[in-house]
């Protein structure tokens, strides 16, 4: 497992700036609402040939944190890394003539290809289920909209559940309770899971701050996950110059067959 570190500058900057501020400027601070910031030192993660999943570390900071609330551990942070939205077809197999065959399907528009969450504490300890639903936060609460909304409600519910279950089974939807740690009263670190089959594209990291179970603030940052040099070039070639790519694949096969003959045969 390689670890990708994305230290945020926000926390460090605060540490430098705060002592320089005159006391008068600090006075109204207590009345300011808390806010949360995350920053990524890199906006790009490359998938190399030996990529087999990774841990992504994001650092963030709370501004105007109330020391009393902090000390009682009543600040909670949930960090989400959401992949680019794409349409998905969910198919269901049924038994036909003894064989298991895809017979039913349901298309969903703009399903995030991946959804990875880290929280400071167990879900039920952060806030109540109604808030999660309202904010569409968590793999079980993100809105999944079928392309054909006129369908049978029960069927749609069944396929929506199957979609979540399959995404979790393939590690694309994952959660890590306790994946967010407070390093100090205002600085936190979140560790998220990138599955081996993490899709390329622009991912969005979002951090949600809760105080005593109430949602306070949200912050987000963009992260582009892409294939590294060689893999990326091959993928692009296959997509954009598909004819030449095919010819090259054929040439490589001819060459391998010919070299194999030269190396091994004696006739």
């Amino acid at each position, binding site marked *: 497992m390689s670890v990708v570190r994305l230290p945020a500058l926000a926390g460090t900057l605060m540490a430098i700036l705060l002592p320089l501020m005159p006391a008068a400027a600090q006075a109204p601070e207590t009345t300011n609402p808390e806010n949360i910031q995350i920053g990524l030192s890199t906006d790009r993660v490359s*998938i*190399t*040939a*030996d*990529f*087999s*999943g990774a841990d992504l570390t994001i650092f963030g900071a709370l501004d105007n944190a109330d020391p009393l609330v902090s000390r009682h551990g009543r600040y909670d942070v949930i960090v989400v890394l959401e992949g680019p939205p*794409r*349409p*998905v*077809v*969910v*198919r*269901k*197999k049924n*038994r036909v003539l*003894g*064989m*298991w*065959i*895809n017979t039913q*399907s349901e*298309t969903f528009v703009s399903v995030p290809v991946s959804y990875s969450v880290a929280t400071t504490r167990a879900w039920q300890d952060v806030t109540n289920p109604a808030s999660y639903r309202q904010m569409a936060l968590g793999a079980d609460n993100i809105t999944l909209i079928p392309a054909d909304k006129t369908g049978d409600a029960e069927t749609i519910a069944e*396929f929506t559940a*199957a979609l979540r*279950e*399959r*995404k979790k*089974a*393939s590690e694309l939807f994952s959660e890590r309770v306790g994946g967010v740690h407070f390093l100090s009263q205002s600085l936190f670190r979140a560790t998220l899971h990138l599955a*081996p*089959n993490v*899709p390329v594209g622009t991912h969005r990291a979002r951090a949600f701050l809760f105080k005593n179970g109430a949602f306070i603030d949200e912050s987000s940052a963009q992260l582009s996950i892409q*294939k590294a040099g*060689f*893999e*990326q070039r*091959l*993928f692009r070639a*296959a*997509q954009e110059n*598909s*004819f030449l*790519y*095919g010819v*090259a*694949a*054929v040439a*490589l*096969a*001819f060459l*391998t*067959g*010919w*070299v*194999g*003959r030269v190396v*091994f*045969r004696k*006739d």
Partner: protein
Amino acid sequence: MGIYLPIAEMSVNMVVLLAMGAAVGFLSGLFGVGGGFLITPLLIFYNIPPAIAVATGANQVIASSTSGALSHFKKGTIDFKLGTVLLAGGVVGSTVGVWVFSLLRSVGQLDLFVSLLYVALLGTVGTMMLIESVRAMRRAAGGAVPSLRKPGQHNWIHRLPLKMRFRASKLFVSVIPVLGLGAIIGFLASIMGVGGGFIMVPALIYLLKVPTNVVIGTSLFQIVFTAAYTTIVHATTNQTVDVVLAFLLMIGGVAGAQYGAKAGQKLRGEQLRALLALLVVAVALRLAFDLFVRPNSLYSLSSLSGI
């Protein structure tokens, strides 16, 4: 050791793929077959999406057949005219095959169709080969001289119009069955990712009565170019050829084939055929098993394009 496949967009174990290529290469050297009919199911069992397994299988077939075709070219045992007519049919069949492939993929029935074709074809060919080789072994045990069916007898195929002369094969036959056979092979190549030698060779011998000395060379010649055409069409239409995957399989395959060929010289012809038949039937049964046994999850996800 993990390696990331850029087209399949997944991380796989490189050693497993090399070993898979080597094992299939060994068997193909041992039995003198292309091995495409083993590679594609093995890739599917290894969770490579069938669409990618098939297209990549076609690419791998080129490498495994090139070396054989070259040695037949040197020996002069290729009927180029017959091979070219077969190839013309192959191009048509392959084009139709890739079109059907895209269509099935978009309606989510590609996996089923590929499995059914494999079960039906491998099951039939394997059973027939098994019966034939057991008979041959019995005859050999009984002391009788095994005799191949003599070419030259005429059947209904020789009464078709549009006859053409194939000098190297000493054949004067209608082009319709030749084109048709080529088209079937091309269709199977694009949908199953196989070379099609297991159908081509018996068809050339028994249906067209091609002399046995040019059968293998001509069949390999047609397979190499049909597979090349199929690879390019798959790459252009479906973007499902994973060249990294294909290359790993080729490396293992080319090396394994040499040892297989050596081992093959120590076994008798009918024993080899019986073993190959058992292998073919086993692959068919394994694929049938997956069709009939309740899968772990009834649900599957795919993008709109079908991967």
